[in-house]
């Protein structure tokens, strides 16, 4: 996949250019491209004066980052305790089966990605599914697959 | 006053006694290859020079060491390798222009002359006094 990397300088300019900004810069890149492209990592290392290995290490350590491109719609299924008790595993299975992919994967047509997230802090509405930053509470077997219709 | 090795090449016969003395002292098995000192042929027949660490004033080995494993021992005036710290990257081995930082393949350690704690054994054993260790005014 090729990208236009014009946005990168703008992202770098938002933060102080020292190693402590690393996580926040990567987050902005992730938000912009919905994953961390190789080229962006190389530039980040250069601009922030951090060794590439450290950038890579941070990019793989934290859950929020992905080195693989994500689909147009990212379906995040909360598997926090409250959601687990109220059956998020079943919701996850339904959505996985419906899209034919497992959590962490992306459909071949790059339309959907499934991610699991350990608690989004909306426990009172469990089980919760987030589709591209939109929260859906009280998801049930009946309406789970409706969330991932095109 | 500082103590220094004093080398008189004309007296050196290349007998390798210094090497033996060094090996026995440091490795206890007398293998010549594990010595910190070695005589080099000076290009002419029968001209030898015992080459041993000069304890330079601005040593390349210390500069090359990225983990600060080589330190100056105030008591003996020798640069010594802390083998616990040494990561065996061999930067010092390559950096020393005299070849006085050596790699001991048997012990898997980098070795160099430590002046035997201030009284080098090699100098004692030199039969021709080509190699001596004396206090001199610098």
């Amino acid at each position, binding site marked *: 996949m090729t990208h236009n990397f014009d946005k990168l300088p703008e992202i770098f300019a938002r933060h102080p250019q020292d190693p402590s900004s690393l996580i926040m810069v990567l987050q902005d890149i992730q938000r912009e491209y919905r994953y961390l492209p190789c080229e962006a990592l190389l530039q980040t290392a250069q601009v922030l004066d951090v060794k590439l290995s450290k950038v890579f290490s941070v990019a793989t350590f934290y859950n929020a980052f992905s080195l693989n491109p994500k689909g147009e719609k990212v379906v995040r299924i909360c598997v926090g305790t*409250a959601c687990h008790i109220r059956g998020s595993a079943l919701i996850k299975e339904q959505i996985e089966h419906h899209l034919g992919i497992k959590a962490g994967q992306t459909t071949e047509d790059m339309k959907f990605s499934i991610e699991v997230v350990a608690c989004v802090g909306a426990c*009172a509405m*469990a089980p919760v599914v987030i589709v591209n930053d939109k929260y859906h509470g009280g998801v049930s077997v009946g309406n789970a697959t409706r969330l991932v219709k095109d | 006053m500082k103590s220094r090795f004093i080398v008189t090449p004309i007296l050196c016969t290349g007998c390798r006694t210094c090497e033996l003395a060094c090996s026995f002292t440091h490795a206890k098995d007398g293998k010549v290859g594990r010595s910190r000192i070695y005589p080099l042929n000076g290009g002419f027949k029968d001209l030898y020079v015992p080459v041993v660490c000069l304890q330079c004033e601005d040593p390349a080995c210390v500069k090359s060491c990225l983990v600060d494993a080589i330190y100056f021992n105030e008591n003996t005036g020798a640069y010594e390798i802390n083998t616990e710290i040494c990561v065996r990257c061999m930067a010092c081995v390559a950096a020393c222009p005299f070849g006085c930082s050596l790699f001991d393949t048997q012990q898997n350690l980098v070795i160099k002359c430590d002046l035997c704690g201030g009284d080098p054994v090699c100098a004692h054993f030199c039969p021709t006094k080509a190699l001596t260790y004396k206090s001199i005014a610098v």
Partner: protein
Amino acid sequence: MKIVSPKQLEQLAAEYKKTADRHKKMVIVCCGTGCLANGAQKIVDAFAECLSRRKVKDFTVEAVKKTGCHGFCEQGPLVVIEPQGTFYTKVKPKDIETIIEKSIENDEVIEKFLFTNPKDGRKIEKYPDVPFFSHQHRIALRNLGKIAPFDIREYIAVDGYKALAKVLTTMTPDQVIDEITKSELRGRGGGGFSAGKKWRTCRNVPSDVHYVICNGDEGDPGAFMDRSIMEGDPHSVLEGMMICAFAVGAKQGYIYVRDEYPLAVIHLQKAIADCEEHGLLGDKILGADFSFSIRIARGAGAFVCGESSALMRSVAGEVGEPRAKYIHSVIKGLYDQPTVLNNVETFVNVPVIINHGADWFRKIGVPKNSGTKVFSLVGKVRNTGLIEVAMGTTMREIIYDIGGGIIDGRPFKGVQTGGPSGGCLPESKLDLPVDFDSLTEAGSMMGSGGMIVMDDKTCMVDVARYFLQFLVSESCGKCVPCREGLYQLHKLTIKICEGNGTEVDIEKMEKLSQQIVVGSLCGLGKSGPNPLLSTIKYYRDEYLAHIRDKKCPAGVCRNLITYRVIPELCTGCLACITACAYHAITGQKKEPHVINQDLCEKCGACVAVCKHDAIEVS
């Protein structure tokens, strides 16, 4: 506008109070994340749209106030009509017209939007009468649902920054620390360490640079109080931090916010910008010789970053790997400088203590555990949401009086507190007073305050497996006992869940757990086996049922259960056939359906959709 003196702040507060009173009629729309998800923004838009069409006497669109979380997220979107305090739940955009017409123009109460008490089915009209709220004691959540979080004027109007002014004008740093120490405020993040002592230690370290960090990395799954506070009352957090900074002599503060909380970041950013504009952050705050600035550091999704040394590394932009703390982070923390790290809830308590005094605070709660604690009461309980009670309240009061009991009137089985570091407590512990020491003694933990209620349909072995899975994926992987030990514990629980366990495995798990507790480097590993140990302790029967009888009493563990349609109850509605992803159910309309056991993956989707309870689990 810069506020240059405490006096000016006082004048402003008086002025803003008047402004706030001007709207006699007011509509409060809860815009916490929960209500927003349920469509609160649409409600606000509908009010605006409706009011643009329709002129209402003494009521403009400005009187529609977006506030932070009320805590009662399950019933959202919530709308409160002031000054009567009429409390409407589950409001929809199409209802707004009616609400304006009846409740605002004519002060009527619309019965159908009122909250129904699940206990007796009666409608409750007023906000404070709802049992969910009436049993609470709100200190940390004092402003939630009352003020608009992104308007500094509203905060100043409720005596915001009064404590800061008091501290700057009348107190010395030592007096502040004395006051906090005297109040016996303990860290609300889980450990329960005395905040005053921590500040004192930090202040006493001779160093030019001190840091204050607010821990908003609420990693415990099932807890969301910090999120609600940061979103709904960001200025309280900032004020608490400023007072702390003044006390320990810090010039720079950080708020570490979880990546999953984007709204909290926005609100905090706005609050910080407002403070800077008003001269409450920056140089010479309120004209006093005190400078302080705050930066937001966003986390990136790592539970282990709730651990202090890991968090500090993460703030510095590194991998969140904990280090051994034989030198405490209060002495050598962020960038190796003395650092105070407190939780959001702890900081929020600070201004109140300064305003009302330590003695007042100490009267709330029980000895050595003063004040209140916020819990997120979730799981299989009727009223889920955020609650705040005085320390020492019993679990029974919380679950039955505030929570309204268990969903569908099912039997209570256990309550999980303290997140992945805590444990599960059975019915026999229901009368345990909830405070730091009692919970720890019972084998659980206060943690950050998650309280997950479980009924008889929850398998405790599965719960232990769930927490271990969580910890295995969240362990940083640095030390062996945590990385390998928890992994092996997880494998063993899977073995039991699949019906392949033996009684030796329980002993093995107990022994390994003990070693993990002793051997791990940081708190994650040291407390990691707690959920497992507490379930073995209190629910050993259930483990034995899995091992000896190869049965899962709760009907959760797939290998040990079968689903069967009860023909007498099945109406042949086809719902389960549609829901079954594996095409394991066959049948005709209006005829009893049949589950093909060979195809059945036991996901339980059929049970979830069946309205007639016609599918039995055995």
